[in-house]
């Protein structure tokens, strides 16, 4: 356990030193501020565009951070040969992978926290007060964090066996496919025979990111059922666990030479 925490803390410390991180956070905050401008040149959507743009910026930039930092988590250590130093310590390979996962996830949670502060500040400035319906925005942010859990795990999985460029491409492609996961399941249901089997397998293998995207609903102040929050949380935990387990399996057998 201590080894995992040490690797996680070290990963977090290295991640926050990355300048790309700060640039992306600043850019996300700028986009949130820009939503004020959009509200000025439109009619009746000031609050909605602030929520849509704000949450979308947090989500997309968080995914970019997760992918760009995540794909190098293992491969950079191998490239720099620092992994040998780490593994000669009493740190098992699986502890290394799990620690990396929690380190990056912690980084993303902290980033989301700061972006959320900027987001709620903008909302309070626009509406001159926060209201009870804004509570659903916290749920939307929680779902974004769950999205990061999944993407981080996938980036780590790809990083455990491929180059950073390939890992980035795989991770982004899975992110995009994950946003269409509902369509994929509908297609699988409409298909027949072998196509149905393959499509169904693919539909359940890709991450169900569509269920985590509630930006449209909270932008219209619609309530979210507690069961959705529960199921999404369990799903993200299970999916990330599976991806990290796969990363451990691959990394345990990987030849470092």
């Amino acid at each position: 356990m201590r080894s995992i925490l040490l690797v996680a803390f070290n990963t977090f410390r290295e991640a926050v030193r990355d300048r790309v991180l700060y640039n992306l956070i600043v850019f996300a905050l700028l986009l949130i501020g820009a939503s004020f401008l959009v509200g000025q040149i439109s009619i009746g959507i000031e609050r909605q565009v602030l929520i849509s743009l704000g949450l979308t910026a947090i989500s997309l930039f968080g995914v970019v951070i997760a992918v760009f930092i995540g794909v190098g988590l293992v491969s950079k250590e191998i490239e720099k040969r620092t992994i040998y130093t780490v593994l000669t310590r009493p740190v098992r390979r699986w502890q290394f992978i799990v620690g990396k996962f929690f380190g990056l996830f912690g980084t993303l949670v902290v980033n989301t926290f700061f972006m959320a502060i900027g987001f709620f500040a903008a909302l309070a400035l626009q509406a001159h007060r926060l209201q009870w319906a804004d509570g659903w925005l916290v749920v939307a942010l929680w779902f974004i964090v769950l999205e990061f859990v999944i993407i981080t795990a996938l980036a780590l999985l790809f990083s455990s066996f491929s180059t950073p460029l390939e890992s980035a491409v795989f991770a982004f492609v899975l992110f995009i496919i994950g946003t269409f996961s509902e369509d994929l399941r509908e297609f699988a249901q409409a298909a027949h025979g072998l196509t149905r089997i393959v499509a169904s397998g693919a539909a359940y293998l890709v991450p169900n990111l569509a269920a985590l995207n509630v930006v449209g609903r909270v932008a219209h102040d619609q309530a979210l059922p507690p069961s959705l929050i529960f199921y999404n949380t369990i799903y993200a935990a299970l999916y990330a666990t599976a991806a990290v387990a796969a990363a451990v399996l691959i990394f345990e057998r990987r030849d470092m030479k």
Partner: protein
Amino acid sequence: MLKKRGITVVAFAVLAVSLAASALIVHLVDRMSADTRLEDVLYLPSARVLKRVSLGYNTLVADLYWTRAVQYFGSKHHSRSSRYDLLYSLLDITTDLDPRLLVAYQFGSIFLAQSPPEGAGQPLLAAKLVEKGIRHDPENWKLYYNLGWILASEMKDYQAASKVFERGSKVPGANPAMGVLAATTAQHGGDVATARLMWTQIYETTENTAIRANAIKRLQALRVDTDIPQLEQSLKQFQEAIGRLPRSWAEMQATGWRGPTVDPLGSPYLIMPDGHVEVADPEEFPFITRGLPPGYKPPFTPDISPALAGNSQQNSQPQKP
């Protein structure tokens, strides 16, 4: 050191001059192609494609398309254009991406319905847009209000407008004025029987004193507007038979004729020398369209909206005619 500073100065100067010159070139190119701008082109004309491209962030893309629609309408309106070719497409895509964007239906339909140069002059498309909104959100009474307004104000189809207002009045939480509007438009469209039924219903179901008083005035006006043509027809028949107009209603009744001779307030209708019939006091009937003296302009009397009338109940209840 001096050489380095010299290079820095030259580099800054080149940077500033290059930027300024490029900005000038952009301005010149814009002026050259002013007539061939692409602003009237929908970059992505399909909501289906946009939904894919937006990666699930449909609401945000809908907001951007709505903003684009507003800017498009604004620029056309500002230049007093009579053509708004892209407006409906932009609004259609916006509402496909986010069917719950109420402002797009409400304001978009107004932009579409009004005659040029105030709007696009496309009331049919405006109605189609709002009907789409109603399909997605049938429990939103405001959409029925929008549709009824388009039908009554722009398409002059008062019967259809009345039906829409009536549908909207039955939506839970609807503004009670929707019922008033249903009855008003029915009356305006000449459907006296429906209008009478609606005003009676309003009178019997509301507890608001101002609305009940307004309903009474409307019912009285309906009665007068029904009585006057009937009386004038009877006078014409009397004149054809006898060769002159009757001196009083009693003379008509002496011939066996039976008809209304007093207005809803009990004052006798007046027989004018030219065969027309007028009410004794037009100011008592602000909503009548018949029986008015020539040149008389009734004062503007709005139908009372519950939102304006307040909810207080007074002791004396107005009596139904």
